[in-house]
């Protein structure tokens, strides 16, 4: 188990990647009481999904 310098478990989580999976992980953790560092290499989150037009099988807009 990772221990912080103060020997106390850290309440922060690092999420690497700001695509749909990273965003979802980050949201779940932040909403349940953890401090989240969401790291994304480009200038905006969204990842590949933001490039899609519609999604199957409902043909909903990917945005």
């Amino acid at each position, binding site marked *: 188990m990772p221990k912080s310098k103060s020997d106390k478990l*850290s*309440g922060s*989580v*690092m999420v690497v990647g700001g695509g749909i999976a990273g965003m979802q*992980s980050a949201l*779940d953790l932040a909403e349940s009481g953890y401090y989240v560092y969401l790291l994304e290499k480009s*200038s905006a989150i969204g990842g590949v999904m933001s*490039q899609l037009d519609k999604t*199957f099988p409902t*043909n909903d807009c990917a945005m």
Partner: protein
Amino acid sequence: MLQKPRYIDLNKCTACGECAEVCPVELDNEYDVGLSNRKAAFKLYAQAIPGAYAIQKTDRAPCSLACPAGLNVQGYVQMVGQGKYEDALKIIMEDLPLPGVLGRICPHGCEDACRRCEVDNPVAIRDLKRLAADQFDPRKIKIECLPPREEKVAIVGSGPAGLSAAYHLARKGILSTIFEALPEAGGMLRVGIPDHRLPREILDREIEIITNLGVEIKVNTPLGPQLTVDDLFKEGHKAVYLAVGAHRGIELGIPGEGAGGVRQGVDFLKELNLSGKTPVGKKVGIIGGGNVAIDVSRSAVRLGAEEVSIIYRRSRAEMPAWEDEIQAAEAEGVKITYLAAPQEVLTQDGKVVGIRCIRMKLGETDSSGRRRPIPIPGSEYDIEIDQLVPAIGQRPDLSAIEDVEGLAFSRWGTADVDPVTYATNREAVFAGGDLQTGPWVAIGAIAAGREAAESIARFLDGRDMAEGREPVTPENPVYRPIPEDNAGKAREKMPELPLKDRKGNFKEVELGYDEDTGKEEAHRCLNCGYCCECFQCVEACIAEAVIHNQKPVEREIEVGSAILCLGTHVFDPAPYEDLYHHESYPNVLTSMEFERFLSATGPTSGHLVRPSDKKEPKRIAWIQCVGSRDTAHCSNDYCSSVCCMYAIKEALIAKEHTGGDFTGTIFNMDIRSHGKGFERYYERAKSEGIRFIRSRVHSITEADDNGTLKIGYVEESGEIYEEEFDIVVLSVGMEPDPSAVELSRKLGVDLNKNNFVNTDDFSPVMTSRPGIYVAGVLQGTKDIPQSVTEASAAACASSVSLAQSRGESTKEKVFPEEKDISGEEPRVGVFVCNCGNNIGGFADVPGIAEYAKTLPNVVNVDENLFTCSQDTQEKIVEVIKEHKLNRIVVAACTPTTHEALFRETLRNAGLNENLFEMANIRNQCTWVHSHNKEEATEKAKDLVRMAVAKSSFLEPISDLMVDIEKSGLIIGGGVAGMTAALSLADQGFPATIVERSDTLGGAARDIKKTWRGNDVHEYLSGLIDRIEQHPIVEVLLNADVTGSSGFVGNFETDILTGGKTRTIKHGVCIIATGANASSPDEYLYGKNPRVTRWHDLEQEPNRIKDARTVVFILCVGSRDDKRPYCSRVCCTSSIGQAVNFKEQNPEINVFILYRDIRTYGEKEALYQEARDMGIIFVRYTIDKKPIVTESDEGLDIRVFDPVLQRELLIKADLLNLATAIEPTGHEDIAGYFKIPIDDDKFFIEAHAKLRPVDFANDGLFVCGMAHYPKPIDESIVQAMAAASKAAIILSQPCIKVSPLVSQVDTEKCIGCGLCAEVCNFVAIIMEEIEGKGFRAKNVPASCKGCGLCASSCPQGAIDMLHFRDRQLLAAVSAVR
């Protein structure tokens, strides 16, 4: 962790886009996979979050690094490309005060460094600089100077070094006097370069730039006995800069050099340039190979010499003069002799008559990197000349300074100085230019002058002269890759004075580019550094958000765990060009490119055209499995899991776009529509005419000149076909992103052979390194809902490991106490935002503000440049207090993005956050009426009036808090249910499992192994152990749910167990009721003992040992009219069993009769293994199902083989059926919790993609096969995801629900119940009130605030808080 700079302040940027508007750098838009362009200042996509722009910038371009003065070349080239000559000059003159001069004579080392050399020829940087100075008078550029200081500085020499020093000193507020020995200023620029290269007016004009700053130039004032350096100090100069240049020609050192008619090249040019003439012979011989030799030769031609020859001792390749100049000289008639050296000047009567030369050959390379010339003995020859001009080099004339105290000189006769500060050994004396370097390029002298100026300024201030000035060169510079399509744009030619017009005059030869040519040339620039630092964006940004000097920030963060969601990289078909022709045929697109063409935000705004001729395509083909299931071309043996579905989607949407006569054709091996709702989608596509052809495409060729494509393919039966298409879409697969692979390795996370993160079937989000979890495609190819589910599961795993520190790192904000405004008259404060230029530029903001003042109840109106800025928030708080405002209206952008910010400001001012209203005068006004200021202004007034009208009726609404019962109920005790229970309990939340049967384990009890071969029984018993021993997990077996009421955080559910009903209170409920294999009534199942289903056979190893032939039939009861869905697990499970049988009994014949093999993801390898083992796969279609009959020996199975095109008879001992997976009857549960089930009786999640484990009703979640058939690993993931979502609710101290809910007036309510009926969220219930009967009651925790109840109520008894009838009608009535 390294945070790269964005170069734009996130907090200040208002996303107005002005920076991108003015940015000159056009780059490929990666968002549109390069199909469109974007600027270096950009926003990734319109809806991007953060909404702020960013600037893409890497290392400084190589041209700039190559320039001795470090000019921002890319910047001014881009400005010239835009026709912004003034801006180009501003950039140039940051460093260089003589743009027109250097634009003509600079040897442009930048061009040698230009990366365009790798493509064709370098960009004509120097000529573009000149164009800027030709088009805009550099004297008119406003030079920013600091206020003048008292100290004066003396500069000796008015060449480029001296002028540059004076210029840069003047900008620092330090004025100088330049002492020039010659009658005219300019140094070598004046006397060393003839007018045909640098017209004297140009030099005059640009020297004026410097003198305009207050610099005084004293000509005819040489340093010497009458004016010494000491004298200069005595005159009061605080520092002296020596820049006397190198004007003394070097002698040849051969006999006869003193004869008449022998003239040093520099002296020849000096006289010519100062007086306009100089004696010239008829036959002129020039010795040397540098630019001076060429200048002399071309001048001699112009002065009327009949024969001009240059003698150079090496070959042309070594010649230091510029190639252009050499060619020009030759064109003008100069003869150049290579590999010859003078040995003796032949004289007659003390005058030169000829020269004796010796031939040379090239030997070893010398210290200059050139091959040393060696005389060839005996090869002497004489040539006849009457003038000899040696031009083999210059050195400084030190006569005036060699005695200066403290000055030291090198053995080459140059001044010794500190290489960074240019300080000499004597205090306050600096030196630079050719005096220090020996003869070098003008731009080097300019740089030296600038550096000396910096040193002098620091010296005068008493600061450290060297600090922070060590030159830094990036070690591995990162540049923009050279775009592939950029070749073949040749360098523009410089127009020249025709040869015939050059004789007898010194008219300038190079005429300069015209504007159009210049722009073309500038556009050849590759923008190596992305951003060109032209700073146009800085000027355009009113919010002052651009920070060009932002630095990367390295941060160390302490975290308890990490989740890798590094995503996917779309397969690049480029290496397989021979097969796919993606690069060479314009109409071959990748699916991602096609996706962008379909998108309304794409390169064609969603208008589908074929790229070659922009015509609407009618025939589109998709080729499946490009980069997937393909070990022949690439090494990807896995299935990408999503391509079949997206191809079908693209085909359907393309059909929508193009209409009637469209044909979509999908070439595939199997169609894998194994997800929820996917099979129906596939069937719909077939019914809409999308063709599915089962074949491997063997060739793509171009059929005509318009780019029509021809596909050659072989059908299953072996027949060969050819067909034409307008567009061919390559359904490219997914790979782990290379950078993700690198990072994973760096973090010590194990990867499998395909570079996906290694995980276990029973812990699918754990990596090999404890504390690091993985989700999404990095774990294995998958679709969006699966990624989202996995992400929540990873969050759950992370949360379990850190549960004791929950809330430790987060902070709660404290606000001042809320002021009671009841009884106060409305006092509305209006803040009208200019949004920089975004509103102010398109509407009359002062007019709107004035108008707002006239509206009822308005007591204060303010205008802000940016109402959203931090300082404005503080100001708003002050204004609220000062004017005792109790309603606030902000007329600015959209509440969607900014309402939360202003609401917080209200809270900071002690006002209830609901006393706030926004008027959207940007997104829905100025931005959409930017062509008509008057209309925009009038509409803005209307919007402000409506907002003010509504605001007067606003009222404070208190936060709604609901307590939470901090426990979970899990219905179903299978793997999913148990995993969900443990995931909650391990976070400290008690969980109760309700299981209908008498044991835990569910459907997994029948399974021996997962597809990877992990032992399921062992796992299951471990899981059950943990459940039974967990102190806060309770298990109720033989238990049935019989009813439920309540809402999120507060459910009460009745459980019938052991004949008694128990009511359990719980905050959340996870439904994991599972699914079972169905029993078929076909293929003799139940009639013949040889026919089994699913895992029955597995349990009886003896039967397999004795069997000779085993047949599997797949899709038994799935994918038919009764159950039009795919059971997802049958293919993998059956193949896995078949492989095991074959391993147990290699002699056994195994047949698998299938419709499509759906071993998605890495399970594909199992399919491949089965084939390799000799398991026989026979495809059947639903209209030709296998026929099973009994025979004496066993079973006769007849099936039509589409490859052999005939019926097969298989004599089988055993037949195993993969029957459809159908949900357990859980309609009762659906009823109790009011959650929907689909036509196949599976539960319907809130959103197929984004909320895969949630229900629309809060606090209820689904996981496992109750949602859809799935293998164990996916059930585990989903269970953890459901637990993650449930834990979000349970971890809150209480539930804060939006208070913008419906409100029932129980006096008006007649209890008709219509509201409860129309509400989709069970947010209105009927409650019995004593003496009144039933009355409607709102359940705020469930209410979404939609208002349907209010607009349905026949009595008008329901109103919506914050959107009350009177509030909305006030806005409605505020019409003009």
